[in-house]
Structure formats: C-alpha cells, structure tokens
C-alpha cells in the first residue's frame, strides 16, 4: 500500500511546495458551517438587506415614483444609498450573527477536541492555521456584505444604465472587507479564549452590545463624541461615513474609526497568534 504503488502521485510529496496549506482548513470549515442546523434559514434571512435595498434602487429609476425620493433620504445619491445599505442596523446585526454562527466554535472546538497538536504535527504554520480559520468567517461575511453590495451596483447598472462612480465602487469593496476582517478576528479571538462554545457565543454578542451600552452611558454623561471609539457599532458606522463620503453623526473623523478598527483587528490577530502559540507549546 505504498504511496508510489498507487501511481497517482505525479511528484513526491516531499518535493511539493504547497503554499496554500490553509485552504483545506477553509474548505472543511465551509462544509461544516453548511451542515449546521438552521444554516440555510440564516443564510436566507441574511439576504433580506439586499432584497430590501433592491426595491428602493428600482424606485430611483422609475419617473413615476420620483416623488418618493424626497421622502427617502438615502435615495438622494449613490453615496447615501450605499452608506445606508452597508450601515443599516439589520445588516450589521446579521454580520454579528453570522460571525457567531460561522466562527464561534472554530478554535474553541479545536481546544475542546484537543485537535491543536494534530494541526501542528503537520507542515502548516500557526499563520496558516489562523489564515484558514479567519477565511471561513471572512468568506461568509463577505458573501452577505461585499457580494450584495456589488450586486446592488450591477442592479443599478441594469435599472438605470449608469455605473456608480469609481469612488463608490472602491468604497463598496474596501468597507465590507475591513468590517468583515474586524468581525472575523474579533470572533476568532473570543473563540480562542474558551473551549465552551456557548460561552464564546454569548461573549461575542455581549461584548458587542456592551461596547455600545457603555458608549451611550458615558456619552450621556460627558457629551464627548470621541467616546464613540469604544463602541463597535459607532466605529463601523462612522468609518462608513468616511469611506462613502457622507455626513458623520459624530464630531470626529470616520477615518479615526477606520484606523481604530484596523488597529483592533491587528491586535486581535496578534493576541490570537500568541494564544495559539502558547497552547501549542
């Protein structure tokens, strides 16, 4: 039963330089998420923001419905439309739920199953491991934020025959990627803190919620907009206003929020790496 006896190996495994060893982790993860109960229901539900924004998009191109433009503020221009799509509370909530659904158990389950040694007894590095796990959440989040955003651009083209500006096109790619990266790293970090999946799920939701509650309380006391930096939701919305060029509800630049989200993502991944390093050693 030797490897060479099968005559299926075009090249000796030892000579292969596979740089994409994290891809099997991604594929396995995608399959596992799909097998989960209520997965299809959640994914169907996650299409709601897209569906609910196709209708107003259609309104903008129908002359007989133009009167509605005055009533619906976000239909005024592309910037406010795409800002409204990407920052509507339903979409952000869906991204949070998707993060929990797809990523809460990704690392905690490995801890619980004591599977970490099995990974690192193979040629994959800790970076590969994190890349593989991160890409699972990222893929699902982008499927319900970036892809619908791009679909809306296509629908706009189909309905009106007009392309969105280059700025909106780039913003519709950049913004969901950064937000998805943030949610993915945040989810994985919490997942690496415990092998109790229920605890991880509650913690992801609770910390998100808590950041907003604490912001509201402190903001009501000291009335300083910069306090918004402690709220995940505020940072996401404020960053979107900078990216899409709309008026921010806060008195500090949305780019600060963006930089803060990127910084947090980096910190989360660094801590995650250290956690994995500590557990595997």
């Amino acid at each position, binding site marked *: 039963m030797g490897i060479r006896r099968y005559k299926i190996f075009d090249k000796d*495994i030892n000579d292969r330089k596979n740089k994409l060893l994290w891809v099997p982790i991604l594929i396995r993860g995608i399959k596992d998420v799909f097998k989960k109960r209520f997965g299809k229901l959640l994914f169907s539900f996650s299409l709601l923001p897209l569906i609910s924004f196709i209708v107003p998009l259609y309104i903008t191109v129908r002359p007989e419905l133009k009167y509605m433009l005055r009533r619906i503020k976000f239909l005024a221009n592309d910037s406010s439309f795409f800002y409204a799509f990407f920052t509507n509370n339903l979409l952000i909530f869906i991204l949070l739920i998707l993060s929990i659904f797809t990523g809460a158990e990704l690392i905690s389950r490995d801890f619980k199953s004591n599977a970490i*040694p099995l990974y690192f*007894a193979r*040629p994959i590095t800790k970076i590969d491991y994190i890349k593989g796990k991160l890409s699972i959440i990222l893929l699902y989040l982008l499927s319900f934020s970036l892809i619908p955003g791009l679909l809306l651009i296509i629908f706009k083209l189909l309905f009106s025959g007009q392309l969105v500006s280059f700025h909106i096109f780039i913003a519709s790619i950049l913004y969901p990627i950064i937000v998805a990266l943030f949610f993915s790293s945040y989810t994985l970090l919490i997942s690496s803190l415990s092998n109790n999946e229920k605890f991880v799920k509650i913690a992801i939701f609770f910390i998100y919620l808590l950041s907003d509650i604490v912001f509201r309380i402190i903001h009501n006391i000291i009335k300083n907009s910069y306090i918004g930096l402690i709220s995940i939701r505020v940072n996401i919305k404020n960053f979107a206003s900078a990216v899409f060029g709309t008026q921010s509800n806060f008195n500090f630049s949305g780019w600060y929020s963006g930089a803060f989200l990127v910084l947090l993502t980096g910190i989360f991944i660094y801590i995650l790496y250290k956690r994995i390093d500590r557990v595997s050693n």
Partner: protein
Amino acid sequence: MGVIKAVNLSKWYGNVLGISEVSVDINKGVVGLLGPNGAGKSTFLKILAGMLKPNLGKIMIKGKNILKDRELYKIIGYCPETDSFYMEMTGFEFIFSLLKLYGFSKNESKILAEAAIEKVGLIARMNDSVTTYSLGMRQRLKFAQSIAHEPEIMIFDEPLRGIDPLWKSKLIDLIKEFKENGKTIIVSSHILPEIESITENIILIHQGKIFAEGNIHYIRDLIDTHPHMISIISKDNRELASVLIKENFVSDISFKEKKIIVKTDNRELFYNHFMRYIAENNIEIFELTSPDDNLQAVFDYLVGAKR
C-alpha cells in the same frame, strides 16, 4: 549522524522541569522510549515531532533543524498520547481532512486514508462517527492518522493504550513491518513487555534525563551495582551449588523452590566455566535462565533505585 539528533534539549514548564540536557542520536529502526509517568517522555516526543519548542538545545532531522524547516513535518508521523478527535466526524473524514493538510489532492487523500484505515482494521466502521468508536478503536484511528501519509519517521506516544490484545499484537507486527521497510520509529510506553515485544533498543528517561540508551542486554551488562542472576534447575542442585560456590566470580547462591539462583558479577566468565564444567562432568541441566536480563530488571535497577 542519526536520522534524528537531539542536542542538549531542555524544556521547563514554568518552574517544572520537563526534560534536561537530553542529547541523543536516533537511527533507523525501532527505539523504545521508557520511563515512569511524568519522566518527560511525552515532552521529549513532542519536541522530536517539532511540536514543542525547547528552551535550550535543538532537534536536527536529517541534518536540518526542524523548527526552521516545516517541510520536514511531511516526513514525520506523530501519534499523540491524548485523545485528539473531532468526535462528530467519521473515521474516514478525520483521516482524510488531516491528509489534506499535507497538500495531498482529494484523490490521493482518499486512497491514503482508506489504506491507513484498512491497516488498523477500521474499514468496516470508517463511515461511522468517531463518537460511536470504542476507546481501542479511537486509539487505532489515532494511530492511523500518524501513518496515513507514510512518513519516514514515526513517533508513537503510548500507541497501544486501551487496545485489545489481538489488535495490540497486530499493531506490534505493523510497527515491525515499518522497521523492515527502513523507517525510523520511536515508541513510548511504560508497559515494559509491550516495548520488549517491539524492540531491544531503548532510551530510558527518568526525571527529565536520559538514564540509559542502547540495547537492553548491553545496558544490563553495564549495571554493575546488581550482580546478574542465573536460575538453574539440574538433576542435583545441591552438588552443583557446592561446586559453583567455590568459584570467585560467584558472589551468592540461594535455593528457590526447585531452582538454584546464582549471582555473578561476570556473566560471561560464569557461562564459560559453567558450560565447560557441565560438559566435562556430564551434568544434566533442565533449565538455565537469566531472570534479570530483561527490560523489567533494567528498568527496576535503574529507575527503581532513583525513586
């Protein structure tokens, strides 16, 4: 240079010593890693497999530092001591998904997974969830994942634990087969007869240090603090004892049931004289054994004294 070369390995877990200044060369063949619980066997094996970074020292696999070349992991198969499974997966999915991590294609992984599962006798149950497996079956599955990619170096940490005698014997045969195929195999256990049935080459580790290394009988010969015991049953034990006691290489003689137990500091000299004596005097010998020329005795003499 050996296939595996450990140079001054030391590992601490906080203030607790894992292993200390371990240097060893391991060549092709089977080496048994022995030691009582907590001796540092698993730590040593994890470092060999490149899964633990030593605080001091380095591990060279075929002349390359394992921590600096992850490609070396392709030629190593590691079977951990503890249960490491995704319980909801089937046995096949488990091995298949781990093979994919080596860069094997889907087709290659499928063939190799089935071959490994067949070797450990789980082919009929490979599509069942691991949750439904018994302890012994899980152990065999764990063994299968470490050999599925047909590595040159196999590191087995307590591979026979919880396995029924029939499959224990089959896995021992499999390990011997790997040895015949030129693999380098390190098997750890604290069940001495298991190791003894696999190999005569051992590394004895205790309190994080290597106590002894090499062939069991050679090591036994080097232990001069305990005279060799030789058990004899002859037609006339008393007469034989009266002759043997006169020899200066015999330090003690005692009677136990129907046996004479002779203690000697020079086993080779004893046998030379003894064989000549019984041949010249036509003495009938029914049994001649060395009860302490085995792994258990070596282990007891070396480790027992230090406990």
